């Protein structure tokens, strides 16, 4: 299990951090973000990298679980 806490980070940090975790390759990866923008950006990047993305809303934050 690999956890990326990208809450409070602005564009494009969440994408950079999630991409680093994907490159490292320890799935599943949990990415935490707190804006819809970051959620969509990370989802788009991860899907392009061939990951399956599951999104869980937690209050006004999001957890993305990336698996491959």
């Amino acid at each position, binding site marked *: 299990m690999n956890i990326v806490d990208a809450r*409070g980070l*602005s*564009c*494009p940090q969440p994408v*950079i951090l999630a991409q680093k975790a994907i490159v490292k390759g320890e799935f599943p990866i949990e990415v935490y973000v707190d804006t*819809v923008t970051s959620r*969509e950006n990370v989802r788009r990047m991860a899907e*392009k990298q061939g990951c399956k993305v599951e999104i869980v809303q937690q209050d006004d934050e999001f957890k993305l679980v990336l698996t491959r």
Partner: protein
Amino acid sequence: MLERLTKFFASRWGVILAGAVIGVLGPTLQKLGNPPNMGICVACFERDIAGALGLHRASVVQYIRPEIVGFVLGSTIAALIFREFKARVGSAPIVRFILGIFAMIGALVFLGCPWRANFRLAGGDLNAIPALIGLVIGIAIGVWFLRTGYNLGRSQKTYTAVGWIMPVLMIGLLLLVIFRPVFSEGGPIFFSEKGPGSLHAPLVVSLAIGLVIGFLAQRTRFCTMGAIRDVILIRDFHLISGVLALLVAAFMTNLVYGQFKVGYAAQPISHSNFLWNMLGMVLAGLAYALAGGCPGRQLFLAGEGDGDSGIFVLGMIVGAAISHNFNLAAKSDAVVEGALQVGGPSPYGMIAVILGLVVCIVIGFTMREKMA
């Protein structure tokens, strides 16, 4: 319903739609009275606001541009409807303020933000080419810093009222342009009687178009800096398809209106100094990349409650005041008795661009987290 709309706006077609709509509306605003070879320019319009408030006294560029008000409030409306309004602050605000100042200094050496660079190209102003090359170079330098750990740190959730500061400020500006109060003899508020500042579409039209663009851009995250950054950084062509849509739509709209005129020299409100068109935009592009958004995007983020973007916007407005007060902004080409006088920045403007590049590079080098 809202979820489905969100999906559409987040899609490639969503951002293409936003770009195309902006591309049509820019030249349309020009047709309706906005400055030629411009239509919409976030940097120039913020500069005009700085002038109207008397922060600088360049009498030809003073007007409270309702488009800027509309951009912020349109984004606020979209964020409220889609429940994305979130007050947040605290990611190195003073750095963002400094970046905003130098972003504007760079923008005013070229005479335009990335939006206007595209509108100028779409109108046949070939000086946009060195500027766009400069923009790519500046962003590429920023991407290098991002790759090597540059990060301004986390923002914090805060009181909702904090997120409302920028939208309320914009409502205040709107009231000033509607009621045009004069605070002392001669102003402020200043409104240009000649020059680009005197050229504007009807207030209601400017505001309405601003609101539409603000709404669409908030939903689609339209960003001219992010577009180029994402191509370089992660080979992602999502945002740039929106920018290309803007370019194509603006080009076709200009053809329809007869506003397309190819050339370098003496284009309206521009200069044909190749080197400084490029270098100004290198500085601006780097500052946008380090701050995470083009001037337009910073307005839309400010509208949805991002106080750090609000600080960047205020930095740009102060930067505009500095640019004109210290004679840093470029002068347009002029034709005097049939002879072309090539414009461009004063030596002070050139020094300011170099200084800005140094400051941005120091920021890039010194604000990097240790890489794991």
